Protein backbone atom coordinates (compact mmCIF):
# COMPACT_ATOMS: atom_id res chain seq x y z
CA UNK A 1 0.00 0.00 0.00
CA UNK A 2 1.10 3.57 0.37
CA UNK A 3 4.53 4.17 1.82
CA UNK A 4 5.64 7.26 3.67
CA UNK A 5 8.03 8.41 1.01
CA UNK A 6 5.23 8.64 -1.48
CA UNK A 7 3.24 10.62 1.05
CA UNK A 8 6.16 12.95 1.57
CA UNK A 9 6.37 13.55 -2.12
CA UNK A 10 2.71 14.35 -2.28
CA UNK A 11 3.05 16.73 0.65
CA UNK A 12 6.01 18.40 -1.00
CA UNK A 13 3.88 18.92 -4.06
CA UNK A 14 1.24 20.48 -1.88
CA UNK A 15 3.65 22.75 -0.09
CA UNK A 16 5.54 23.94 -3.12
CA UNK A 17 2.35 24.44 -5.07
CA UNK A 18 0.40 25.90 -2.19
CA UNK A 19 -2.30 23.28 -2.50
CA UNK A 20 -4.89 23.15 0.23
CA UNK A 21 -6.30 19.78 -0.71
CA UNK A 22 -5.14 16.64 -2.45
CA UNK A 23 -7.26 13.53 -2.79
CA UNK A 24 -5.73 10.47 -4.35
CA UNK A 25 -7.48 7.18 -4.93
CA UNK A 26 -6.25 3.73 -5.88
CA UNK A 27 -6.93 1.55 -8.85
CA UNK A 28 -9.85 3.60 -10.15
CA UNK A 29 -7.22 6.41 -10.42
CA UNK A 30 -8.62 9.50 -8.78
CA UNK A 31 -6.87 12.75 -7.81
CA UNK A 32 -8.40 15.80 -6.21
CA UNK A 33 -6.40 18.97 -5.73
CA UNK A 34 -7.38 22.17 -3.97
CA UNK A 35 -5.38 25.31 -3.90
CA UNK A 36 -5.44 28.92 -2.71
CA UNK A 37 -6.50 30.60 0.52
CA UNK A 38 -9.62 28.94 1.81
CA UNK A 39 -12.00 30.27 4.36
CA UNK A 40 -9.82 32.22 6.83
CA UNK A 41 -12.09 31.57 9.78
CA UNK A 42 -10.74 28.97 12.16
CA UNK A 43 -13.24 26.33 13.11
CA UNK A 44 -12.77 24.39 16.28
CA UNK A 45 -14.70 21.41 15.11
CA UNK A 46 -14.87 18.60 17.61
CA UNK A 47 -13.79 15.55 15.72
CA UNK A 48 -12.77 12.00 16.41
CA UNK A 49 -9.74 12.32 14.15
CA UNK A 50 -6.80 11.66 16.51
CA UNK A 51 -4.31 12.80 13.91
CA UNK A 52 -5.65 16.32 13.79
CA UNK A 53 -5.75 16.74 17.54
CA UNK A 54 -2.42 15.16 18.23
CA UNK A 55 -0.84 17.20 15.50
CA UNK A 56 -1.88 20.60 16.62
CA UNK A 57 -0.11 21.10 19.94
CA UNK A 58 3.28 20.92 18.27
CA UNK A 59 2.03 22.91 15.33
CA UNK A 60 4.10 25.41 13.40
CA UNK A 61 3.05 29.03 13.43
CA UNK A 62 -0.05 29.51 11.29
CA UNK A 63 0.61 31.17 7.98
CA UNK A 64 -1.41 34.22 8.90
CA UNK A 65 1.41 35.33 11.17
CA UNK A 66 -0.19 35.15 14.58
CA UNK A 67 2.01 33.67 17.26
CA UNK A 68 1.27 30.20 18.54
CA UNK A 69 1.18 29.60 22.28
CA UNK A 70 4.29 28.11 23.89
CA UNK A 71 4.96 24.43 24.19
CA UNK A 72 4.74 24.18 27.97
CA UNK A 73 1.23 23.24 28.89
CA UNK A 74 0.09 24.52 25.58
CA UNK A 75 -1.28 21.27 24.27
CA UNK A 76 -3.77 20.82 27.03
CA UNK A 77 -4.87 24.43 27.00
CA UNK A 78 -5.24 24.42 23.25
CA UNK A 79 -7.23 21.30 23.28
CA UNK A 80 -9.52 22.46 26.01
CA UNK A 81 -9.93 25.82 24.39
CA UNK A 82 -10.53 24.14 21.10
CA UNK A 83 -12.97 21.64 22.48
CA UNK A 84 -15.10 24.04 24.39
CA UNK A 85 -14.62 27.45 22.83
CA UNK A 86 -12.72 28.88 25.80
CA UNK A 87 -10.35 31.86 25.62
CA UNK A 88 -6.87 31.98 27.09
CA UNK A 89 -5.25 34.61 29.24
CA UNK A 90 -1.55 34.34 28.38
CA UNK A 91 1.56 35.71 30.06
CA UNK A 92 2.92 38.85 28.37
CA UNK A 93 6.39 38.26 29.81
CA UNK A 94 8.90 35.86 31.32
CA UNK A 95 8.74 35.73 35.09
CA UNK A 96 7.29 34.18 38.22
CA UNK A 97 3.54 33.75 38.59
CA UNK A 98 1.71 34.81 41.77
CA UNK A 99 -2.01 34.17 42.21
CA UNK A 100 -2.29 36.64 45.09
CA UNK A 101 -0.74 39.96 46.12
CA UNK A 102 0.90 38.39 49.17
CA UNK A 103 1.21 34.94 50.71
CA UNK A 104 -1.62 35.53 53.16
CA UNK A 105 -3.92 37.45 50.81
CA UNK A 106 -6.79 35.86 48.90
CA UNK A 107 -6.08 35.05 45.25
CA UNK A 108 -7.09 37.67 42.71
CA UNK A 109 -9.43 35.19 41.05
CA UNK A 110 -10.68 31.66 41.57
CA UNK A 111 -12.55 29.29 39.30
CA UNK A 112 -16.08 30.55 38.71
CA UNK A 113 -15.20 34.23 39.19
CA UNK A 114 -16.41 36.67 36.59
CA UNK A 115 -13.76 38.87 35.00
CA UNK A 116 -13.79 41.91 32.74
CA UNK A 117 -10.84 43.23 30.67
CA UNK A 118 -9.57 45.52 33.45
CA UNK A 119 -9.73 42.90 36.21
CA UNK A 120 -6.31 42.01 37.67
CA UNK A 121 -6.00 38.21 37.61
CA UNK A 122 -2.43 37.65 38.82
CA UNK A 123 1.02 39.12 39.32
CA UNK A 124 4.08 38.23 37.28
CA UNK A 125 7.36 39.13 38.89
CA UNK A 126 10.17 39.96 36.50
CA UNK A 127 13.42 41.61 37.59
CA UNK A 128 12.04 42.32 41.09
CA UNK A 129 9.12 44.20 39.55
CA UNK A 130 5.62 42.94 40.30
CA UNK A 131 3.49 43.35 37.20
CA UNK A 132 -0.26 43.18 37.54
CA UNK A 133 -1.76 41.19 34.71
CA UNK A 134 -5.25 42.08 33.53
CA UNK A 135 -7.78 39.64 32.12
CA UNK A 136 -8.25 41.46 28.80
CA UNK A 137 -11.32 39.28 28.35
CA UNK A 138 -14.86 39.18 29.63
CA UNK A 139 -16.32 35.98 31.02
CA UNK A 140 -15.94 33.39 33.75
CA UNK A 141 -12.67 31.82 34.95
CA UNK A 142 -12.96 28.16 33.99
CA UNK A 143 -9.51 26.90 34.88
CA UNK A 144 -6.20 28.12 36.38
CA UNK A 145 -3.30 26.52 34.55
CA UNK A 146 -0.30 27.55 36.70
CA UNK A 147 0.55 27.69 40.36
CA UNK A 148 1.94 30.42 42.60
CA UNK A 149 5.73 30.53 42.42
CA UNK A 150 5.88 28.83 39.04
CA UNK A 151 8.11 30.25 36.30
CA UNK A 152 6.21 31.19 33.18
CA UNK A 153 7.44 32.18 29.74
CA UNK A 154 6.15 34.62 27.17
CA UNK A 155 2.77 33.68 25.73
CA UNK A 156 2.22 30.83 28.17
CA UNK A 157 -1.50 30.26 28.91
CA UNK A 158 -2.34 31.13 32.52
CA UNK A 159 -6.14 30.98 32.69
CA UNK A 160 -9.00 29.65 30.59
CA UNK A 161 -12.01 31.93 30.41
CA UNK A 162 -15.49 31.06 29.17
CA UNK A 163 -16.57 34.15 27.26
CA UNK A 164 -20.06 35.52 27.74
Amino acid at each position, binding site marked *: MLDVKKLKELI*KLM*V*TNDLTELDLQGDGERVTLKRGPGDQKVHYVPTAAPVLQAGEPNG*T*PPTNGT*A*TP*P*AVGQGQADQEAGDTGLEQITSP*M*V*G*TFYAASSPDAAPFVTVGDRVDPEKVVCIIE*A*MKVFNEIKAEATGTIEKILVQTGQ*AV*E*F*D*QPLFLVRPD
Partner: protein
Amino acid sequence: MFSRILIANRGEIAVRVIRAAREMGIETVAVFSTADRDSLHVRLADRAICIGPPAPADSYLNIPRIISAAEVANVDAIHPGYGFLAENAHFAEVCRSCNIEFIGPSVESMSILGDKVQCKQLAIKHKVPVAPGSKGKIEDEADAVKIARDIGYPVMVKAAAGGGGRGMRVAHNDISLRSGIKQAMAEAQGAFGDGTVYLEKFLENARHVEVQILGDQHGNVVHLFERDCTMQRRHQKLIEEAPCPVLGNDKREDVCKAAVRLAKAAKYFSAGTVEFLMDAKQKFYLMEVNTRLQVEHPVTELITGIDIVKTQIRIAAGEKLPFSQKHIKRHGHAIETRINAEDPDNGFTPSPGQMTEFEMPGGPGVRVDTHCYSGYRVPPNYDSMIAKLIVHQPTRDEAIATIRRALGEFDIGPNKTTIPLHIRLMLNGSFRKSDVDIHFVERLFGQR
Protein backbone atom coordinates in the same frame (compact mmCIF):
# COMPACT_ATOMS: atom_id res chain seq x y z
CA MET B 1 33.41 27.23 36.67
CA PHE B 2 29.81 28.12 35.88
CA SER B 3 27.23 25.39 36.31
CA ARG B 4 24.57 26.95 34.09
CA ILE B 5 24.66 29.67 31.43
CA LEU B 6 22.05 31.41 29.31
CA ILE B 7 22.65 32.14 25.65
CA ALA B 8 21.13 35.51 24.74
CA ASN B 9 21.09 34.85 21.02
CA ARG B 10 19.65 32.67 18.28
CA GLY B 11 20.75 30.85 15.12
CA GLU B 12 24.06 29.13 14.54
CA ILE B 13 25.94 31.10 17.18
CA ALA B 14 23.50 29.98 19.89
CA VAL B 15 24.10 26.40 18.73
CA ARG B 16 27.86 27.03 18.76
CA VAL B 17 27.83 28.25 22.37
CA ILE B 18 25.54 25.42 23.50
CA ARG B 19 27.96 22.89 21.99
CA ALA B 20 30.94 24.45 23.78
CA ALA B 21 29.11 24.59 27.11
CA ARG B 22 27.86 21.03 26.82
CA GLU B 23 31.36 19.73 26.19
CA MET B 24 32.50 21.62 29.30
CA GLY B 25 29.74 20.04 31.40
CA ILE B 26 27.85 23.33 31.77
CA GLU B 27 24.05 23.34 31.56
CA THR B 28 22.55 25.59 28.89
CA VAL B 29 19.44 27.74 28.81
CA ALA B 30 18.23 28.99 25.44
CA VAL B 31 15.92 31.95 24.97
CA PHE B 32 13.80 32.29 21.87
CA SER B 33 11.15 34.38 20.21
CA THR B 34 7.95 32.82 18.98
CA ALA B 35 9.43 32.83 15.46
CA ASP B 36 12.25 30.53 16.60
CA ARG B 37 10.24 27.88 18.41
CA ASP B 38 11.52 25.14 16.04
CA SER B 39 15.13 26.31 15.83
CA LEU B 40 17.95 23.91 16.65
CA HIS B 41 19.23 26.00 19.58
CA VAL B 42 15.89 25.49 21.31
CA ARG B 43 16.12 21.75 20.76
CA LEU B 44 19.75 21.37 21.83
CA ALA B 45 19.66 23.43 25.03
CA ASP B 46 18.91 21.81 28.38
CA ARG B 47 16.12 24.31 28.84
CA ALA B 48 14.51 26.85 26.53
CA ILE B 49 12.43 29.88 27.49
CA CYS B 50 10.21 31.86 25.15
CA ILE B 51 10.88 35.55 25.81
CA GLY B 52 8.72 37.37 23.32
CA PRO B 53 7.33 37.91 19.85
CA PRO B 54 9.49 37.87 16.69
CA ALA B 55 10.48 41.57 16.71
CA PRO B 56 14.06 41.76 18.09
CA ALA B 57 13.19 44.79 20.22
CA ASP B 58 10.68 42.64 22.09
CA SER B 59 12.86 39.54 22.39
CA TYR B 60 16.58 39.23 21.59
CA LEU B 61 17.24 42.95 22.15
CA ASN B 62 14.98 43.24 25.19
CA ILE B 63 17.22 43.40 28.25
CA PRO B 64 14.51 43.06 30.96
CA ARG B 65 13.07 39.97 29.29
CA ILE B 66 16.46 38.31 28.97
CA ILE B 67 17.42 39.13 32.54
CA SER B 68 14.03 37.82 33.73
CA ALA B 69 14.67 34.56 31.93
CA ALA B 70 18.16 34.37 33.44
CA GLU B 71 16.72 34.88 36.92
CA VAL B 72 13.90 32.39 36.41
CA ALA B 73 16.43 29.80 35.18
CA ASN B 74 18.96 30.75 37.86
CA VAL B 75 22.01 30.93 35.59
CA ASP B 76 25.53 31.98 36.54
CA ALA B 77 26.39 33.76 33.32
CA ILE B 78 25.09 34.97 29.97
CA HIS B 79 26.81 34.51 26.63
CA PRO B 80 25.67 37.23 24.21
CA GLY B 81 26.95 35.61 20.97
CA TYR B 82 27.48 38.24 18.24
CA GLY B 83 25.07 40.94 17.09
CA PHE B 84 22.02 41.80 19.22
CA LEU B 85 23.36 42.78 22.68
CA ALA B 86 26.92 41.49 22.27
CA GLU B 87 28.53 44.95 22.16
CA ASN B 88 26.04 46.67 24.42
CA ALA B 89 28.01 47.86 27.45
CA HIS B 90 24.79 48.72 29.28
CA PHE B 91 23.63 45.09 28.96
CA ALA B 92 26.96 43.88 30.36
CA GLU B 93 26.52 46.28 33.26
CA VAL B 94 22.96 45.13 34.00
CA CYS B 95 24.05 41.48 33.93
CA ARG B 96 26.84 42.05 36.40
CA SER B 97 24.69 44.21 38.66
CA CYS B 98 22.29 41.23 38.83
CA ASN B 99 25.18 38.97 39.84
CA ILE B 100 25.13 37.27 36.45
CA GLU B 101 28.50 37.22 34.73
CA PHE B 102 28.55 38.67 31.23
CA ILE B 103 30.74 36.43 29.05
CA GLY B 104 32.67 39.22 27.42
CA PRO B 105 35.02 42.06 28.31
CA SER B 106 34.68 44.67 31.04
CA VAL B 107 32.20 47.50 30.64
CA GLU B 108 35.14 49.93 30.60
CA SER B 109 36.94 48.12 27.74
CA MET B 110 33.72 47.90 25.76
CA SER B 111 33.04 51.59 26.25
CA ILE B 112 36.46 52.88 25.30
CA LEU B 113 37.00 50.56 22.33
CA GLY B 114 33.39 50.88 21.17
CA ASP B 115 33.86 54.64 20.76
CA LYS B 116 35.89 54.90 17.58
CA VAL B 117 37.31 58.29 18.44
CA GLN B 118 38.54 57.20 21.86
CA CYS B 119 39.77 53.93 20.41
CA LYS B 120 41.78 55.75 17.77
CA GLN B 121 43.35 58.06 20.33
CA LEU B 122 44.33 55.05 22.45
CA ALA B 123 45.79 53.39 19.34
CA ILE B 124 47.89 56.43 18.45
CA LYS B 125 49.19 56.56 22.01
CA HIS B 126 50.32 52.93 21.77
CA LYS B 127 51.82 53.14 18.28
CA VAL B 128 49.09 51.08 16.65
CA PRO B 129 48.95 52.25 13.01
CA VAL B 130 45.91 54.36 12.15
CA ALA B 131 44.79 56.15 9.01
CA PRO B 132 45.62 59.90 8.84
CA GLY B 133 42.61 62.01 9.83
CA SER B 134 41.09 64.21 12.49
CA LYS B 135 42.65 63.90 15.94
CA GLY B 136 39.23 63.46 17.48
CA LYS B 137 35.69 64.32 16.63
CA ILE B 138 34.87 66.99 14.06
CA GLU B 139 33.81 70.22 15.72
CA ASP B 140 32.87 72.21 12.64
CA GLU B 141 32.89 71.92 8.85
CA ALA B 142 35.66 74.44 8.30
CA ASP B 143 38.01 72.38 10.47
CA ALA B 144 37.04 69.27 8.57
CA VAL B 145 37.77 70.86 5.20
CA LYS B 146 41.17 71.98 6.45
CA ILE B 147 42.04 68.47 7.65
CA ALA B 148 40.74 66.88 4.45
CA ARG B 149 42.90 69.17 2.29
CA ASP B 150 45.79 68.39 4.54
CA ILE B 151 45.60 64.59 4.29
CA GLY B 152 44.29 64.73 0.73
CA TYR B 153 41.01 63.58 -0.79
CA PRO B 154 39.26 61.16 -0.88
CA VAL B 155 38.39 61.13 2.80
CA MET B 156 35.81 59.30 4.82
CA VAL B 157 33.43 60.67 7.43
CA LYS B 158 32.78 58.00 10.07
CA ALA B 159 30.47 57.81 13.08
CA ALA B 160 32.22 57.37 16.43
CA ALA B 161 29.52 54.93 17.50
CA GLY B 162 29.27 53.36 14.03
CA GLY B 163 29.52 49.92 12.58
CA GLY B 164 28.30 47.90 9.62
CA GLY B 165 28.71 50.77 7.19
CA ARG B 166 26.14 53.04 8.77
CA GLY B 167 27.07 56.65 9.44
CA MET B 168 29.81 56.54 6.80
CA ARG B 169 30.33 58.87 3.82
CA VAL B 170 33.14 59.09 1.30
CA ALA B 171 34.00 62.61 0.11
CA HIS B 172 36.11 63.49 -2.93
CA ASN B 173 36.06 67.29 -2.55
CA ASP B 174 35.06 70.11 -0.24
CA ILE B 175 31.47 70.17 -1.40
CA SER B 176 30.79 66.47 -0.96
CA LEU B 177 32.61 66.60 2.39
CA ARG B 178 30.35 69.35 3.73
CA SER B 179 27.18 67.52 2.72
CA GLY B 180 28.66 64.17 3.81
CA ILE B 181 29.27 65.43 7.33
CA LYS B 182 25.68 66.57 7.67
CA GLN B 183 24.33 63.27 6.34
CA ALA B 184 26.64 61.11 8.44
CA MET B 185 25.82 63.05 11.61
CA ALA B 186 22.09 62.71 11.00
CA GLU B 187 22.40 59.00 10.21
CA ALA B 188 24.60 58.34 13.24
CA GLN B 189 22.24 60.26 15.50
CA GLY B 190 19.33 58.23 14.20
CA ALA B 191 21.04 54.85 14.30
CA PHE B 192 23.14 55.10 17.45
CA GLY B 193 21.74 58.09 19.32
CA ASP B 194 25.14 59.75 18.99
CA GLY B 195 25.91 62.10 16.12
CA THR B 196 29.66 62.32 16.75
CA VAL B 197 31.69 61.87 13.56
CA TYR B 198 35.38 61.99 12.67
CA LEU B 199 37.46 62.15 9.51
CA GLU B 200 39.89 59.66 8.00
CA LYS B 201 41.83 59.19 4.80
CA PHE B 202 39.82 56.92 2.49
CA LEU B 203 41.89 53.96 1.37
CA GLU B 204 41.32 52.59 -2.09
CA ASN B 205 42.16 49.01 -3.08
CA ALA B 206 42.59 47.99 0.53
CA ARG B 207 42.20 44.54 2.05
CA HIS B 208 40.41 43.76 5.31
CA VAL B 209 42.76 41.98 7.72
CA GLU B 210 41.86 41.45 11.37
CA VAL B 211 43.67 40.00 14.36
CA GLN B 212 42.01 37.64 16.85
CA ILE B 213 42.78 38.49 20.46
CA LEU B 214 42.28 36.54 23.68
CA GLY B 215 42.89 38.11 27.06
CA ASP B 216 42.24 36.91 30.60
CA GLN B 217 41.34 38.83 33.77
CA HIS B 218 44.91 38.53 35.01
CA GLY B 219 46.47 40.82 32.41
CA ASN B 220 47.55 38.18 29.90
CA VAL B 221 46.78 38.92 26.26
CA VAL B 222 47.68 36.79 23.23
CA HIS B 223 46.84 36.93 19.54
CA LEU B 224 45.65 33.96 17.45
CA PHE B 225 47.06 35.43 14.23
CA GLU B 226 45.07 37.17 11.54
CA ARG B 227 42.09 36.54 9.30
CA ASP B 228 41.58 37.96 5.83
CA CYS B 229 37.99 39.12 5.26
CA THR B 230 38.53 41.07 2.06
CA MET B 231 35.72 39.26 0.22
CA GLN B 232 32.80 41.48 1.19
CA ARG B 233 29.64 42.85 -0.32
CA ARG B 234 28.19 46.07 1.08
CA HIS B 235 30.33 45.72 4.26
CA GLN B 236 29.00 42.19 4.78
CA LYS B 237 31.72 39.57 4.82
CA LEU B 238 31.15 36.71 2.40
CA ILE B 239 34.34 34.68 2.68
CA GLU B 240 36.92 34.72 5.46
CA GLU B 241 40.22 32.90 5.57
CA ALA B 242 43.31 32.40 7.66
CA PRO B 243 46.12 33.06 7.23
CA CYS B 244 45.95 36.14 4.97
CA PRO B 245 47.22 34.66 1.67
CA VAL B 246 49.46 37.60 0.74
CA LEU B 247 50.87 38.70 4.10
CA GLY B 248 54.59 38.39 4.81
CA ASN B 249 55.72 36.94 8.14
CA ASP B 250 57.38 40.15 9.34
CA LYS B 251 54.31 42.23 8.65
CA ARG B 252 52.18 39.55 10.27
CA GLU B 253 54.17 39.73 13.46
CA ASP B 254 54.02 43.54 13.45
CA VAL B 255 50.26 43.76 13.09
CA CYS B 256 49.55 40.95 15.55
CA LYS B 257 51.79 42.60 18.14
CA ALA B 258 50.13 45.96 17.54
CA ALA B 259 46.74 44.36 18.18
CA VAL B 260 47.98 42.88 21.45
CA ARG B 261 49.35 46.31 22.49
CA LEU B 262 45.98 47.94 21.89
CA ALA B 263 44.14 45.21 23.81
CA LYS B 264 46.53 45.51 26.73
CA ALA B 265 46.18 49.28 26.72
CA ALA B 266 42.41 48.85 27.03
CA LYS B 267 42.89 46.27 29.82
CA TYR B 268 40.99 43.92 27.54
CA PHE B 269 39.84 40.45 28.50
CA SER B 270 37.68 37.81 26.68
CA ALA B 271 37.78 37.31 22.90
CA GLY B 272 38.06 40.35 20.67
CA THR B 273 39.08 41.35 17.19
CA VAL B 274 41.18 44.27 16.03
CA GLU B 275 40.22 45.11 12.45
CA PHE B 276 42.62 46.77 10.04
CA LEU B 277 42.67 47.91 6.46
CA MET B 278 45.83 46.88 4.64
CA ASP B 279 47.03 48.73 1.55
CA ALA B 280 48.92 47.31 -1.43
CA LYS B 281 52.25 47.90 0.34
CA GLN B 282 51.00 45.90 3.35
CA LYS B 283 50.74 49.00 5.49
CA PHE B 284 48.06 48.67 8.15
CA TYR B 285 45.45 51.16 9.35
CA LEU B 286 43.24 50.47 12.36
CA MET B 287 39.57 50.29 11.45
CA GLU B 288 37.82 49.31 14.67
CA VAL B 289 37.82 46.83 17.54
CA ASN B 290 34.99 44.30 17.90
CA THR B 291 34.59 43.58 21.60
CA ARG B 292 32.92 40.20 21.04
CA LEU B 293 33.07 36.84 19.30
CA GLN B 294 33.09 37.14 15.50
CA VAL B 295 31.05 35.18 12.98
CA GLU B 296 34.31 34.07 11.38
CA HIS B 297 36.02 32.82 14.56
CA PRO B 298 36.04 29.16 13.29
CA VAL B 299 38.77 29.79 10.70
CA THR B 300 41.08 30.78 13.54
CA GLU B 301 39.98 27.77 15.60
CA LEU B 302 40.88 25.46 12.73
CA ILE B 303 44.37 26.83 12.10
CA THR B 304 45.30 27.13 15.79
CA GLY B 305 43.39 24.19 17.30
CA ILE B 306 42.13 26.55 20.02
CA ASP B 307 38.43 26.58 20.89
CA ILE B 308 37.72 30.31 21.20
CA VAL B 309 34.26 29.93 22.74
CA LYS B 310 35.39 27.54 25.46
CA THR B 311 38.32 29.83 26.21
CA GLN B 312 35.96 32.81 26.41
CA ILE B 313 33.83 30.96 28.98
CA ARG B 314 36.90 29.99 31.01
CA ILE B 315 38.10 33.59 31.00
CA ALA B 316 34.71 34.84 32.18
CA ALA B 317 34.89 32.33 35.04
CA GLY B 318 38.17 33.92 36.11
CA GLU B 319 40.57 31.29 34.82
CA LYS B 320 43.97 32.17 33.41
CA LEU B 321 44.70 31.64 29.71
CA PRO B 322 45.81 27.99 29.42
CA PHE B 323 48.52 28.90 26.89
CA SER B 324 51.04 31.65 26.28
CA GLN B 325 51.91 33.26 22.94
CA LYS B 326 54.77 30.92 22.15
CA HIS B 327 52.51 27.83 22.42
CA ILE B 328 50.15 29.09 19.73
CA LYS B 329 51.05 27.68 16.32
CA ARG B 330 49.42 27.91 12.92
CA HIS B 331 48.70 24.79 10.83
CA GLY B 332 47.46 24.87 7.26
CA HIS B 333 44.81 27.08 5.75
CA ALA B 334 41.13 27.56 6.65
CA ILE B 335 38.33 29.18 4.65
CA GLU B 336 34.79 30.02 5.70
CA THR B 337 31.83 30.85 3.48
CA ARG B 338 28.63 32.30 4.87
CA ILE B 339 25.61 30.58 3.34
CA ASN B 340 22.62 32.93 3.27
CA ALA B 341 19.03 32.17 2.30
CA GLU B 342 19.15 34.85 -0.39
CA ASP B 343 18.86 34.80 -4.14
CA PRO B 344 22.19 36.04 -5.54
CA ASP B 345 20.71 36.22 -9.06
CA ASN B 346 17.93 38.46 -7.93
CA GLY B 347 19.51 41.28 -5.94
CA PHE B 348 20.14 39.08 -2.90
CA THR B 349 16.47 39.12 -1.93
CA PRO B 350 15.88 37.00 1.18
CA SER B 351 14.36 33.58 0.64
CA PRO B 352 12.72 32.60 3.93
CA GLY B 353 10.24 29.78 4.50
CA GLN B 354 10.40 26.07 5.00
CA MET B 355 13.40 24.16 3.69
CA THR B 356 11.96 20.82 2.69
CA GLU B 357 15.49 19.81 1.70
CA PHE B 358 18.50 20.56 3.87
CA GLU B 359 21.41 18.17 3.45
CA MET B 360 24.89 19.19 4.62
CA PRO B 361 28.29 18.21 3.24
CA GLY B 362 30.63 16.04 5.31
CA GLY B 363 33.88 14.11 5.11
CA PRO B 364 37.47 15.21 5.69
CA GLY B 365 38.35 18.83 6.33
CA VAL B 366 34.74 20.00 6.55
CA ARG B 367 32.99 21.77 9.42
CA VAL B 368 29.42 23.02 9.25
CA ASP B 369 27.97 25.37 11.87
CA THR B 370 24.22 25.73 11.46
CA HIS B 371 20.93 25.91 13.30
CA CYS B 372 19.01 24.41 10.38
CA TYR B 373 17.82 20.92 9.55
CA SER B 374 15.61 19.22 7.00
CA GLY B 375 12.14 20.70 7.48
CA TYR B 376 13.34 23.88 9.25
CA ARG B 377 11.41 27.05 8.48
CA VAL B 378 13.68 30.10 7.99
CA PRO B 379 11.90 32.95 9.77
CA PRO B 380 11.68 36.21 7.82
CA ASN B 381 12.42 38.23 10.96
CA TYR B 382 16.19 37.93 11.27
CA ASP B 383 19.33 37.96 9.17
CA SER B 384 19.40 35.40 6.42
CA MET B 385 22.52 33.39 7.31
CA ILE B 386 21.55 29.72 7.50
CA ALA B 387 24.95 28.05 7.75
CA LYS B 388 28.69 28.54 7.85
CA LEU B 389 30.82 26.12 5.88
CA ILE B 390 34.40 26.08 7.11
CA VAL B 391 37.20 23.90 5.70
CA HIS B 392 40.76 23.18 6.80
CA GLN B 393 43.53 21.77 4.63
CA PRO B 394 47.33 21.91 4.55
CA THR B 395 47.38 24.52 1.76
CA ARG B 396 45.09 27.26 0.42
CA ASP B 397 44.72 25.49 -2.95
CA GLU B 398 43.61 22.31 -1.20
CA ALA B 399 41.23 24.30 1.01
CA ILE B 400 39.64 25.87 -2.07
CA ALA B 401 39.28 22.39 -3.66
CA THR B 402 37.62 21.08 -0.50
CA ILE B 403 35.24 24.02 -0.07
CA ARG B 404 34.33 23.80 -3.75
CA ARG B 405 33.58 20.09 -3.32
CA ALA B 406 31.63 20.65 -0.09
CA LEU B 407 29.58 23.54 -1.53
CA GLY B 408 28.46 21.14 -4.25
CA GLU B 409 27.26 18.63 -1.69
CA PHE B 410 24.73 20.97 -0.07
CA ASP B 411 21.19 20.06 -1.04
CA ILE B 412 18.91 22.89 0.04
CA GLY B 413 15.49 23.77 -1.29
CA PRO B 414 13.14 25.20 -2.26
CA ASN B 415 14.80 28.28 -0.73
CA LYS B 416 17.41 30.10 -2.79
CA THR B 417 20.87 30.36 -1.25
CA THR B 418 24.19 32.07 -1.91
CA ILE B 419 25.85 28.70 -2.61
CA PRO B 420 25.97 29.22 -6.41
CA LEU B 421 27.66 32.59 -5.82
CA HIS B 422 30.28 30.97 -3.58
CA ILE B 423 30.97 28.26 -6.14
CA ARG B 424 31.49 30.97 -8.75
CA LEU B 425 33.84 32.88 -6.45
CA MET B 426 35.85 29.72 -5.69
CA LEU B 427 36.44 29.30 -9.44
CA ASN B 428 37.32 32.97 -9.96
CA GLY B 429 40.90 33.49 -11.07
CA SER B 430 41.45 36.67 -9.06
CA PHE B 431 40.17 35.06 -5.88
CA ARG B 432 42.32 32.00 -6.46
CA LYS B 433 45.38 34.24 -6.73
CA SER B 434 43.93 36.36 -3.90
CA ASP B 435 44.38 39.38 -6.13
CA VAL B 436 41.41 41.16 -4.54
CA ASP B 437 40.41 44.18 -2.45
CA ILE B 438 37.32 44.96 -0.41
CA HIS B 439 35.43 46.21 -3.48
CA PHE B 440 36.24 43.15 -5.59
CA VAL B 441 32.88 41.40 -5.18
CA GLU B 442 30.93 44.58 -5.88
CA ARG B 443 32.94 45.21 -9.05
CA LEU B 444 32.32 41.60 -10.12
CA PHE B 445 28.59 42.16 -9.74
CA GLY B 446 28.75 45.51 -11.47
CA GLN B 447 30.32 43.87 -14.51
CA ARG B 448 27.65 41.21 -14.87
